[in-house]
C-alpha cells in the first residue's frame, strides 16, 4: 500500500512545485493551503507523513503539527520552512511536535531521499521483530513530569531564571542534573541549574532530565557489562569523548540537539535491564562466553531485537528529534545506506569503541577505515581527543 503524504503551505506555488516534484514517485500526494484544510484531509484519511510550512496566517505549522501529534501520533511530522532563525528551528523540534526541520529552498532529490529515509526508519522501528519485543513490555517508561513542565516553559519562552527555579523546586533533580553535566561534558563544570542552562542551553538540560530519569529508574540493577553503574560510566565517557572530538574537528561545541547523544545512545540497554530482567542472566552469560560475538546478535537471539532498535524506538516514541533516534538506531551500523547524518553516527560509533577501551574492555567490534572517513577524522585524531578528555588513557 502506497504511503500518503500531505504538504501544507499557504503559498500555492510551493504546493504546485512539490506536487510536480513528487509526481513520479509512488507516494500518494495531497496538498492543502491552510492548516484547517490539512486537518480536514487528515480526518478523511490519515496520512503517513505531513510536511508543513511554519509561518501561516491563522494557525501556524507548529500548532497544526501539535494537533496532528495528539490525534494521529503515528503520522510522521516534518516542518519545511523558509525561516532561517535557529531559535525557531530548535523550538519546533524541542517539544517533539516535529520530527525534523527542513528549510526552503529545498533540493527535490534530497527532499525525496529524506522522506524515503523517514519512512524506512519508521518501518524499521515498527518492524515485526521490534514491535513484538516492545509489545511484550507492559508499559514503556514514561517521561518524568518535570520534563513536560520544562518543555512547556521552553515553549512559552519563559526566561532562564524561571525555568531553573522550577527545576530547583524538584527534590533530587538538581543533584542528578549537575551530576550528568559534570561527568558527561568535556571541559565544563557547573554549580547550579541556572548556570547549567546559561552555559549549555535549555535543550541540553531537557535531554539531561530524560537520560538521568531513565538511569535513576534502574538504579542498582543489572549485572556484568549490563549493570547500570557500568553503563552510566560508559555513556558518560562516550559523551565526553564525543564533545572533545567534535571540538577538535570543528573548533566549536557540538550542536545542542546532539549534545547528549553519547549519554542516550545505549538507553536500549537500560530498557533491557528494566523490562527483560528474566532474560538478563542468560544474555550476560552468553556475552561473557562469546567475547567476540557482536552484542546485537546475542540480543536479537535472546530478546528478539537489539538495544539499538529498542533505544531508538523509545526515543522516537518520546518524540525526540530525528537525529537522536537515527544515531541511536545505527550506532552499530553507521555505514547503513539509510543513515542521513553519517558524520555524527560514525563519530558516535568511534567514541563508543574508544570508551570501551577507556574502561579497559575489549570492544566487540572494530572500526573500519570507511567509518573514520565518514566521520572525517583519522584514528590519530580520535586517540588525541581521547587523551584530551582522559589524560591517562593508554591504548
Amino acid at each position: 500500500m502506497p504511503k500518503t503524504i500531505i504538504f501544507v503551505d499557504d503559498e500555492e506555488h510551493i504546493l504546485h512545485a512539490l506536487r510536480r516534484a513528487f509526481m513520479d514517485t509512488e507516494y500518494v500526494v495531497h496538498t492543502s493551503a491552510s492548516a484547517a484544510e490539512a486537518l480536514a484531509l487528515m480526518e478523511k484519511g490519515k496520512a503517513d507523513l505531513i510536511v508543513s510550512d511554519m509561518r501561516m496566517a491563522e494557525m501556524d505549522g507548529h500548532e497544526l503539527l501539535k494537533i496532528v501529534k495528539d490525534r494521529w501520533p503515528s503520522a510522521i511530522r516534518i516542518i519545511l520552512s523558509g525561516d532561517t532563525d535557529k531559535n525557531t528551528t530548535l523550538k519546533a523540534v524541542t517539544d517533539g511536535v516535529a520530527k525534523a526541520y527542513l528549510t526552503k529552498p529545498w533540493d527535490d532529490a534530497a527532499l525525496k531521499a529524506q522522506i524515503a529515509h523517514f519512512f524506512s526508519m519508521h518501518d524499521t522501528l515498527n518492524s515485526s521483530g521490534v514491535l513484538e519485543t516492545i509489545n511484550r513490555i507492559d508499559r514503556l517508561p514514561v517521561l518524568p513530569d518535570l520534563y513536560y513542565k520544562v518543555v512547556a516553559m521552553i515553549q512559552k519562552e519563559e526566561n532562564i531564571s524561571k525555568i531553573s527555579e522550577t527545576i530547583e523546586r524538584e527534590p533530587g533533580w538538581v543533584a542528578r542534573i549537575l551530576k550528568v553535566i559534570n561527568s558527561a561534558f568535556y571541559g565544563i563544570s557547573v554549580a547550579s541549574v541556572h548556570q547549567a542552562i546559561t552555559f549549555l542551553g535549555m535543550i541540553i538540560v531537557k535531554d539531561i532530565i530524560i537520560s538521568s530519569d531513565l538511569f535513576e529508574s534502574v538504579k542498582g540493577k543489572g549485572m556484568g557489562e549490563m549493570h547500570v553503574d557500568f553503563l552510566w560510566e560508559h555513556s558518560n565517557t562516550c559523551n565526553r569523548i564525543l564533545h572533545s572530538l567534535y571540538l577538535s574537528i570543528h573548533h566549536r561545541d557540538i550542536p545542542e540537539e546532539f549534545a547528549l547523544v553519547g549519554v542516550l545512545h545505549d538507553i536500549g540497554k537500560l530498557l533491557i535491564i528494566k523490562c527483560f530482567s528474566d532474560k538478563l542472566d542468560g544474555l550476560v552469560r552468553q556475552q561473557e562466553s562469546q567475547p567476540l560475538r557482536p552484542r546485537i546478535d546475542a540480543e536479537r537471539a535472546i530478546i528478539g531485537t537489539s538495544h539499538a532498535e529498542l533505544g531508538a524506538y523509545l526515543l522516537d516514541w518520546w518524540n525526540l528529534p530525528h537525529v537522536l533516534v537515527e544515531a541511536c538506531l545505527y550506532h552499530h551500523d553507521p555505514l547503513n545506506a539509510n543513515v542521513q547524518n553519517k558524520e555524527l553516527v560514525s563519530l558516535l560509533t568511534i567514541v563508543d569503541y574508544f570508551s570501551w577501551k577507556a574502561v579497559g574492555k575489549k570492544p566487540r567490534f572494530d572500526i573500519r577505515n570507511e567509518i573514520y572517513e565518514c566521520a572525517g577524522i583519522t584514528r590519530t585524531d580520535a586517540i588525541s581527543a581521547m587523551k584530551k578528555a582522559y589524560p591517562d588513557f593508554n591504548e
Partner: protein
Amino acid sequence: MTIRSKLIYLLVVLCVLVGIVTFVSVYQLNELAAPLKTDIPRAIEELHSVTEMDALVNQVRYYDELLTQSARNYAFTKDVKWKQRYYLYLPAFMDAMRQTETSADSSLRAFFLTVSVENDSLVAMETAALDKVGNGGQKDAIAILESNNYWKCKRTLENALRAYFSRRGLSDDNAYEFSSVTIHSVSAMATNMVRRTYRAGVVLVVMTALFLIIAGMFLYRSIVRPLDSFSRKIRTHSVGGQTIGLAETNDEFGVVAKSFNDMESRLRQNQMQLVQSEKLAAIGQLAAGVAHEINNPIGFISSNSATLKKYVAGFVSLINLYRKGADTETTLLHETKINLGFILQDVDVLLKENEEGLSRVIAIVKNLKDFARIDANQGVMLSNINDGIRNTLLVAANEIKYVADVKLDLGNIPPVPCVLNEINQVFLNVLVNAAQAIRDQKRTSRGCILIRTYEEGENVYCEISDNGPGIPSDVISKMFDPFFTTKDVGKGTGLGLSISYDIIVNKHKGSIIAENSVDGGACFKIRLPLTTEAGRA
C-alpha cells in the same frame, strides 16, 4: 603645580608662620619671667635679712635701756636687786651685741663696730659705778653715771641705732611696709606679664585666623573651583551629547580630566560600536525576514527548474524519436510514458509561476535597496516620508503580515529634508516593535496597525498606532534610554529606540513621543520639521 605640592607648600608656610609666632611669644614670656627668677627671690631674701637685723637692733636698744636704768636705780637706791638685775641681763645684752657684729653684712659691720666700742665703754663705766656703790662710794658712782663722758657715749649709741633705721628709710618698726612694696612690685610685674601675654595671644589668634582664611581661599581656588567647573561642564555638555573635553591642567585635576577625556572617547567609541552592532542586529533581523520572503519563491523556482529539466528531457527524447522517424504508435506510447498531455498543460503554468516568483524576488531586492538607499546620496535630501513608509512596510512585511493588518492613511505631505534611510530605520523599529507586541499577546484575532501622515504648521507628522497591549507604564519613561530592553538577554541590544530617538531628535531636530491610546494600544508620534535650517545640525 599639582594640588599635592600646593597643599604641601601651604602646610610648610603655615608651619613656619606658626613657628615664628610661637617663638616670639615664648621669647617674650621668657623675658617677662626673668624678674621672677632673680629679682623676686632676692627681694624676699633681703626682706628676710632686714627684718632679722631689725629685731637684733631693737633687742640691743631694749637691753641697753634696761641696763642703764638698772645701774642708775642701784646707784641712787643702793637696792641690791637692781645690781642683780643688771648682771642678769648683761650677758644677754653682750650676746645681742656680738650677734649684730657677726650677722651684719659688710656695709654695716664698721658701723656696728663703733656701736660696740661705745657700748663697751658704757658697760665699763656702769660696772665701775656699780662697784663704787658696793664700796660706799655712792657719790662717785652717781658722778660717773651723770658724767658728760657717759652721756656722750650714750648719745652716740642712741644716734647710731637711730641712724641704722633712718638709713634704711624705715621708721622704727615699719619693716612690713617694705615687704608690701616688694609684693606690690611683684604683683605689678605679674599683671604686666599677663597683659603682654594676652596681647601676644590675641596677635597669635588673629594671625592664625588670617592664615586660615588665606588657606581656605587658596584651597577653594585650587580645588573647589576646578571641581565646580568640571561638574558644570559635564552637566551641560552631556545633555546635548556633545564631546565634553575637560581642560587638562598641570595638576591632579589635569590627570582626572585626562582620564575622563580618555574614558569619554572610549565610551564614544564603544557607543559607536554598539550602534554599529545594533545596526548589525537590525540587519540580521531584516535579513532573516527577507530570507524568509525570498526563500519561498526561490524554493518553488528551484524545484520547478528541476521539474522543468525533467520536462525538457521528455521533450528531447520525444523529438529524437520524431527525428528518427518513429511510427505513430511508438511516439504515442512515449508521449503517454512521459505524460506529455500534462506536461504541455503544466509547462506554461510552471513558467508563469517561476516568472512571478522571480519578479517577487526582484521586487524584494529593489525594496531593500530603496529602504536602505544603498545607491542614493547618504546626506540630507528632500524626501517623501510616504515613500519611506511604503518601502519599510514591504521590508517589514514578513514580521507583520502573519499577525496584523496595516491600514494606511497617508496625507498629501510635502517632501521633508531628511536622511531617508535613517528615517526608514526608525519606522522599521517602531513597526517591528508593534508587530512583536501583537504577536506576543497570542491573541486569537489579527491585530491592526494604523499609519497616518499629515502636515501641520511647519512640520510633517507620522503617527504609528496599534491595537496591541500598549506600553506598560513603568516602561514608557525608560523606553528611549540606551540599553533598556524588555526582551530576554540576547534578544535585542536595547538600543533600537534610543537610536531612533537620536535619529529623530538629535539629527533631524524633530521629536518622537510614545503614548498609549485610549483603547489600549501604543501610539508613536514622530514630528519632522520642514524648514531646512532646522535640518541636520
